[in-house]
């Protein structure tokens, strides 16, 4: 297991301390850890189990039950592709294939270089713009038309590569 850095551990400790005396603290702690770190590391489950006097298996069960919790670190950039009916009919699968080819990330997984996470989502409520996807919170409609969407991904890759070689 990749060891968490000290600041992440301190974040977890602070979150656990903040909620430990509250009713039903486990889910509150998990929410906050997910928001702060982007995923639930195993260390967080251990600490939460200890603070709530439950077993790690129980906390893990909660994490696995709710779709919004993830146990894998997210990439630096998150791409959501809508797989609602309208988007699917308008070619969301093609969109996913393109993103996979560009980023190397599998569906609901993170690319090996840690740059991108590709999440397939339920209907985003923008069916008029189908197929729809979101990069880092910004919505791209009619994403198969033109190259706006793929250009953005290429731009991010390029930018990350330059900062990497500069540092």
């Amino acid at each position, binding site marked *: 297991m990749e060891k968490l850095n000290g600041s992440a551990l301190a974040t977890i400790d602070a979150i656990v301390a903040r909620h430990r005396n509250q009713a039903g603290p486990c889910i509150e702690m998990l929410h906050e850890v997910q928001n702060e770190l982007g995923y639930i590391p195993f260390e967080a489950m251990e600490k939460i189990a200890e603070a709530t006097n439950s*077993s790690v298996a129980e906390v893990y069960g909660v994490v696995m039950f709710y779709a919004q919790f993830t146990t894998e670190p997210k990439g630096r950039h998150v791409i959501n592709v809508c797989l609602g009916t309208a988007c699917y009919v308008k070619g969301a699968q093609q969109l996913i294939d393109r993103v996979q080819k560009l980023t190397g990330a599998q569906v609901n997984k993170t690319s090996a270089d840690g740059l991108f996470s590709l999440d397939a989502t339920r209907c985003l409520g923008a069916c008029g713009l189908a197929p729809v996807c979101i990069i880092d919170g910004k919505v791209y409609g009619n994403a198969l038309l033109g190259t706006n969407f793929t250009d953005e991904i290429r731009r991010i890759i390029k930018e990350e590569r330059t900062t990497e070689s500069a540092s």
Partner: protein
Amino acid sequence: MAEVHIKINNQFITAEQGDTILDAANRSGIQIPTLCYLKNVIRTGACRVCLVEVKGARALLSACTTPVSEGMEVWTNSERAIRGRKTTVELIMSNHNKNCLSCKRNTNCELQRLCAELGIRQNRFEGEHTQPTYEDASWGIVRDTSKCVLCERCIGTCANVQGIGILGLQNRGFKTICGPVYNGSFDDVNCMQCGQCVIACPVGALTEKEEIHSVITAINDPDKIVICQTAPAVRASLGEEFGLPIGTLVTGKMVAALKRCGFDRVYDTNFGADLTIMEEGSELLRRIQNGGTLPMFTSCSPGWVRYVEYQYPELLSHLSSAKSPHMMFGAICKTYWAQKHNVDPSKIFVVSIMPCIAKKSEARRPECETGDYPDVDAVLTTREAGRLIKMYGIDELDALEDENFDMDFLGEYTGAGVIFGATGGVMEAALRTVKQKLENKPLERVDFMECRGMAGVKEAQIDLNGEKIWIAIASSMTCAKPLLEDVRAGISKYVFIEIMGCPGGCINGGGQSIVSARKKHGTIGYTYKDRRMKALYDEDRFKEKRVSMDNVQLQKLYEDFLGEPGSEIAEKLLHTTYSPKKKFKIVQ
């Protein structure tokens, strides 16, 4: 307690306020089938097998969770109730791997029994199956979720009986499966391998790792000398595998059956138990006299040893360094016995028949590899021994004539060894020898009644040659925990503490014959433990020698080979070390 008057199947029944329908029915001898409910462990109402019809209720209700109320009328076997129950079981079956023929629990499965009783003749619902996990990485427990019925009995047992909780449900809805975190192995988490989850499982989802085949190979290898040793608790439970009543003592018949299987020697681990007492007893005396770490904990339950290594690593120095009896016996077989018979130790194959699953991983502990060969080569549970005997064509154990254990060099054993199998037995055995040694005269009273019984925690003050010491006995980790917390806090008054991993001791070990939930809820109830315990104390009572140090062959072993307890060679062969273990080995 207020009385509640109800009617079940038109029969008037007086129940107690707070009873469920199932409690009231069980107490009156009315059988309601169950699957997920396990008395004193878990009651979730999840499986819906115990559905009954209640007058005035719109739907069928689960008997295990519905409380009784005054004037309630219940039908457990109305057509509607039976139909509801049958559909429930058919739905459970629709997501079950129905390979009964190759299942270890075949003929001993609670789901199979329900299907038979309800007359289920077809697979009414065929459809998708949950993605299964088959996992057998640890030397102990094997998990096959294709057979799991999600009853949560294992989860409740681990959490409520042992207070650990390594098992849980994960994922959601149809994808739900049961297992350790990350759907991993029992080796990746802080599992003590006691196997209580295995004997709680109604089906074949959790089972022991089988070693029968390596034993058969060894028996059939003309170069190998295969020595079998049987733990004390096995003789009180093996009979159940052959349909004999719980608590039938089958010592002689077990020996006869094992000899027919082709073992070159059949010995009693009790010789090893007597040896353990000599080593552990002198270690205790040394610790008392030299100001060593006290209280001292017994170390013959490998599940308990694992527990300390995971949960209380700071208390490891309290554990006696003595190996468990079967490991000592194996070590002696490959040294002393080999010398006496002038055979090459590499040709000796030691098989332990144990009531325990944790012994399987104990036999492979790197810390125990002190000699040139592994002490023990294979460990079979009581259930595996039953299967092995049946495989060799012996179906009626009680039809065999009693035979005696082999007697050359390692055959003698005392009553003190026999009682190792019940909680309090090791303590009593140790006290017999320590007291006799200290007072230097035969005991006036061999029975230490204060050590006996099925209570989770027992304590007593014992007079040892004028000095009074406090001792304590606990079985199961929830019972042991308060004692351990006191030791950690440095406020424990005890000098010697016996702890067994399984509730009731080895007689209720994870490798023993499985007592169905129906029996546990019926007239036998949890007295099955007392019945097995009684069998052991009965054998002890009629033994001529009942104090370990009186064992003549053991004295000879010390004279010819070991010297004295705690000697250099005894330390090398009979003692071991412990190390803190990381709770989770998780690879993300």
